[in-house]
């Protein structure tokens, strides 16, 4: 986890950074996860609210690594809609993790 991320996700009273000009995305994958969810909704793959409801659920149940919860919400919605299968996602993720695919965003 990057320092930016750690700062952003601190819990408790000290967790309110007060400066402007923070990075929008702490890492490229966060931007990609954001873009995928917005784009699919724009293209009509689902209503935005269906995504949002899952995001609320993931945030309520998980820790507060915000974009990880975002990605969880997106994945669970795509699984529920049958767009992707759990098996193909985990197989593909393994290929990236083992560098069998080029991990460049």
């Amino acid at each position, binding site marked *: 986890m990057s320092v930016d991320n750690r700062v952003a996700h601190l819990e408790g009273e000290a967790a*309110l*950074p007060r400066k402007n000009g923070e990075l929008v995305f702490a890492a490229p*994958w966060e931007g990609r996860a954001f873009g995928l969810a917005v784009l699919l909704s724009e293209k009509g793959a689902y209503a935005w609210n269906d995504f949002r409801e899952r995001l609320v659920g993931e945030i309520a149940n998980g820790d507060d690594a915000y974009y990880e919860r975002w*990605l969880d919400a997106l994945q669970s919605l795509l699984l529920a809609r049958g767009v992707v299968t759990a098996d193909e996602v985990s197989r593909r993720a393994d290929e990236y993790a083992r560098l069998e695919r080029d991990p*460049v965003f």
Partner: protein
Amino acid sequence: MSHDHDHDHDHDHHPEAPSPVEARALALESLLVEKGLLTSEEVDRIVSMYEHDIGPMLGAKVVARAWVDEAYKQRLLEDGPAAVKELGISYPAGTQLVVVENKQDVHNVIVCTLCSCYPWPVLGLPPTWYKSPPYRSRMVREPRTVLEEFNLTLPDEVAVNVWDSSSDVRYMVLPQRPQGTEGWTEEQLAGIVTRDCMIGVARPRIPAESAAR
């Protein structure tokens, strides 16, 4: 060339294995591309748009116009989406934008207690702290204390209204025009309207050098 792609990143030669969450994001994107649901270029475009083109400068333009044009301000307060469209800002159908006006005795601030709803088309993406659990829970419970932590101390006679966003209704704060800005152009005015002013955790301030003139 030893590699068969056209990227020019440092890690081409010594690639590091992506973290599990990165691998999952890569997996989803590549599968969605393969299934023809989107292209990586489209994702690039969205990300870059939210990083560079869509941001608080759009909301600042709206605020500055409302400050110089009373009739526009009324339209903005009555129908947010229609009024921002007048300035060439597109606002997606299906979500409301409610603009809440700060007054001498009323201060408004926005929050999303459930997740991170935010008026993207006029403010861009929310800052990290807006999405943090402490902000989301505490702004509703103890707004004055949280505002003080943002260095905004409000006198007791000023009422604080906290607006909790939802998927259907997004809020934006119309700050008060500061004294000492008489005769300023819209562009100058927009320059002092920050993102935080439109969230409601700050007030527009005149930079020292302008005040001295």
